[in-house]
């Protein structure tokens, strides 16, 4: 059940990301601040925290697959999101083993994932000269608003999925 439902849920979020840019009020989205939705990443971080056990790596797999999907649909350059999401989720997966997962820790890990991911994207796009924004400007107009907006999404999503994922997590490996 969860094997089908979770990827489907991520897919829906990926699709919604694209539609959000078109349907939410333009004044909100196209202000000077560059809000970028990372909803799929938020959900995958939650999966890595509550669904994955220490020895399973479903979330990393999801990160790679859906990162690649985002690369393909929304950008010209393949591999950037795929690599970023994969490596960030892997780091989160490693950190979660060491920390006891309560709400505060979860939010902090979520914020860390978002900052790491977005900064990683910036570095790579800067290297291949897709963007020519300077670091300081980037932090102000994109990194901060994006992190805050996505953390809000994280906090909203948290109570809905936590229990359910922990329940599904116990079913992993059972026929």
């Amino acid at each position: 059940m969860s094997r089908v439902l979770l990827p489907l849920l991520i897919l829906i979020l990926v699709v919604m990301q694209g539609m959000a840019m078109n349907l939410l009020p333009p004044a909100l989205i196209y202000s000077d601040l560059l809000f970028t939705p990372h909803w799929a990443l938020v959900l995958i971080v939650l999966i890595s925290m509550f669904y994955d056990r220490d020895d399973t790596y479903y979330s990393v797999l999801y990160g790679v697959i859906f990162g690649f999907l985002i690369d393909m649909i929304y950008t010209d350059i393949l591999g950037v999101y795929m690599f970023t999401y994969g490596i960030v989720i892997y780091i989160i997966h490693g950190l979660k083993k060491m920390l006891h997962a309560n709400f505060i820790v979860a939010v902090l890990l979520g914020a860390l994932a978002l900052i790491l991911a977005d900064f990683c994207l910036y570095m790579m796009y800067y290297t291949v000269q897709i963007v020519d924004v300077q670091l300081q400007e980037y932090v102000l107009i994109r990194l901060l608003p994006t992190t805050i907006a996505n953390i809000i999404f994280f906090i909203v999503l948290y109570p809905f999925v936590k229990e359910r994922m922990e329940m599904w997590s116990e079913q992993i490996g059972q026929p």
Partner: protein
Amino acid sequence: MIFRKKRLIMILISLIILVALVGLSLGDRGEKTMPEKFLHDTVGWTQNIFGKPVRFVNGAVDHFQELYDVHEQNQVLKSRLTENRNLLAENQRLKERNQELRSVIDKAETRSDYEPIHATVIARSSERWFQQMTINQGESDGIEQNMAVITGEGMVGKIQSVSEFHSTVKLLSGFDRSNRISSWVVKEGEDTENGFGLIEGFDEESERLLLKEIPFEDEVKKGETVISSGLGGVFPEELEIGVIDEVENDEYGLTQIAYVKPSANLYNINHVIVVNRSMETVESENGESEEEGS
């Protein structure tokens, strides 16, 4: 120790894959590969399914807001109606005469003729650094790479890539040196020749297009309209691009640069028209996505 090594190798392999993929996709690939087209269509359909109800609600809200000023609008429109009727008659007459004259000199097609293909925008790139969006018409509807995309207000971009049933549009705000548009500056109410220039990129800070290579003798002024000239060989003639906002000399003082404000709103786009030029289009030799060969 064994685990460490395994991890290191994994990271190295993924780095190699990353560099290979980025390198592969950085160059202009022209056509998409089959699996890419397939994935693009699949996601497009999903977006369509989820988009329909959301768009419906969105539309309903808009309609409701519009109801308030319907009466006022009605008054204004009524007074314009008679005016327009006269214009229509005149337009009809001119068109007929134009056609007649054309048939006399045996020249049926012009650069300004095109077939419109209507499409709805279903998604926009969530990565703000990529100025592109997806529309719900593709190869099977006659869309090809590099066609111009307009809205009622003016030009918004061009087709970047096509799959079977969906295609990706590159917006004007994402244009750079390799996507030039050959254009004319329309001089108001005179018989003088139109000014010539090339749209070569977008100034992100001021959100204006750069119209470069205007000959120094040409007097272009603020407020004049910029249209496509059709001389690049791909876009048709007379698509409105924008209005000149500011003119200055270029760095060498040999030509002028004009900053052009796009006529169309590039942020709030729901329906677009893809323009299929009727006259034969010129394929650029090197396969690069340029309207104007360099």
